[in-house]
């Protein structure tokens, strides 16, 4: 191949140029995968058993039983709704000052870093982990769940709202400051109108999330419909579990639909 123009075959250059290294990587990966798979204990009898149990569950899901445990289900749902509403309202209310503090263009830097640190802490840990902590601190029941979801809501709302505050049109703030308005008046007149649609949208979105979370944190003992669901599984009452799951799906879908409707209106 003396002349480049005469070449008639071409294949893409390999990802790893050195063939020794290339093959070492491929063979090494294959050996590791084989050993790793062997290290996981696989109990085929248990899997077969589980398959039939899974089938029972699917059957229960197809024949949901809303009636036999209707009192517990109703109580659980009510508890979840209360948890959702209280923690959303509380979370949003507490998120407002944190969001203002975490917006670079509003807050002085010590406040900014403090609020950002709080947001980071709230967002680092999954709700379930925080729920376990709060259950350990305050005992089983919806109070721990409410605290968990409130805490998570603050982090979520404050972070997204702070970003929105940082994106506002600065000239409007300048104009209000130029009239001799105080800091609080500037927030009320120049910042609030600019971020209000986003605040409403995020709060409604958080309502759906919080309802779903209230089902999850119940499993670690923090009350709500999750606790009822967990009990149903423990008693092998798959029809009841199926009914609960269907109710959760229905409520989440209803929440999502209405929040979408309202969000479109406030823009």
């Amino acid at each position, binding site marked *: 191949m003396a002349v480049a123009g005469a070449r008639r075959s071409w294949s893409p250059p390999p990802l790893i140029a050195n063939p020794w290294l290339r093959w070492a990587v491929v063979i090494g990966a294959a050996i590791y995968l084989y050993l790793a798979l062997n290290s996981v204990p696989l109990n085929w009898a248990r899997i077969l058993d589980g398959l039939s149990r899974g089938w029972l569950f699917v059957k229960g899901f197809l024949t949901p039983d809303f009636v036999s445990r209707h009192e517990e289900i109703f109580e659980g749902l009510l508890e979840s709704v209360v948890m959702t509403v209280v923690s959303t309202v509380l979370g949003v209310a507490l998120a407002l000052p944190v969001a203002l503090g975490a917006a670079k263009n509003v807050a002085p830097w010590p406040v900014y870093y403090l609020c950002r640190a709080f947001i980071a802490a709230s967002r680092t840990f999954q709700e379930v982990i925080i729920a376990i902590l709060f259950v350990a601190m305050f005992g089983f029941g919806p109070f721990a769940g409410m605290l968990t979801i409130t805490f998570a809501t603050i982090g979520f709302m404050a972070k997204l709202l702070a970003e929105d505050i940082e994106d506002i*049109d600065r*000239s*409007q703030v*300048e*104009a*209000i*400051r*130029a*009239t*001799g*308005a*105080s800091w*609080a*008046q500037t927030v*009320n*007149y*120049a910042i609030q*109108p*600019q971020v*209000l*649609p986003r605040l409403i949208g995020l709060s409604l979105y958080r309502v759906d999330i919080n309802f779903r979370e209230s089902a999850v944190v119940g499993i670690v003992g923090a009350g709500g419909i999750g606790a009822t669901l967990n009990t149903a599984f423990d008693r092998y009452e798959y029809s009841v579990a199926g009914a609960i799951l269907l109710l959760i799906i229905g409520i989440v879908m209803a929440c999502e639909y209405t929040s979408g409707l309202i969000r479109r209106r406030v823009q």
Partner: protein
Amino acid sequence: MLELKGLEKRYPTGDRALRGVDLVVPQGQVMALIGPSGAGKSTLIRCINRLVEPTAGSVRLGDLELTRLGARELRRARRRMGMIFQEYALVERLSVMENLLSGRLGYVGFWRSWFRRFPAADIAQAFAILDRVGLTEFVDKRADALSGGQRQRVGIARALLQDPDILLVDEPTASLDPKTSRQIMRLIVELCEERGLAAIINIHDVALAQQFARRIVGLRMGEVVYDGPPADLTAEVLTTIYGEEDWSRTIRREDEEEEDPEAARDGTAEEAGGPPAPDRERLAGMT
């Protein structure tokens, strides 16, 4: 009434936006501040109400030294200085009336302004000014539903509602078409005359400045390089302010000055005096 002495502004980046500006604006005088982009015009008027903190020098409004005021006294002093902005700077999602009443924020307490319960006198005054700028039927419209000229009228009304002694006007016409620009400039000048207000108007458009201001100050690289009547604005002066360019067609000609004032009111003055000039001047100002 307004007196700047050795006013300097150095930004943290090291840019010296103002290099010792001395300027006196007597009561009731409408002054145009011209100069190329980056000459420090915006910085200058923002240093007066301290939206930008001056690095050195003094700003006296009446017998009040503004540069040394604490936060509370500064807010009190800002009430006396109405500001009008290039992009109107209205709060878009608030109604026309709320935007107007925001001019009273320096006078009312937080809870009153939060619940929009302004004193009856303020509201009566707001309606009077709204009528004066011709926007009475828009009182409950949201600001973002208005056209550019209408928004600037709301901006002017907001500044007037502060009951100021001086207007600080930052490029009031830069976002408007030539006809609306003239209407807005005429409105500002008329209102200043009616109320005996002084005004500093930053403006790119040399022809507009000449047409409406009684005094022109040229700023270049943060220094005053011209201060005099519009008639003395010669090609040489424009070259000192903006740099070398063919200015022969920018300068207002004699025949235009003796024009029938009615023709100017119809907005036909521009056509009568040759090709509409603003675009060219703006290009010159951009360099």
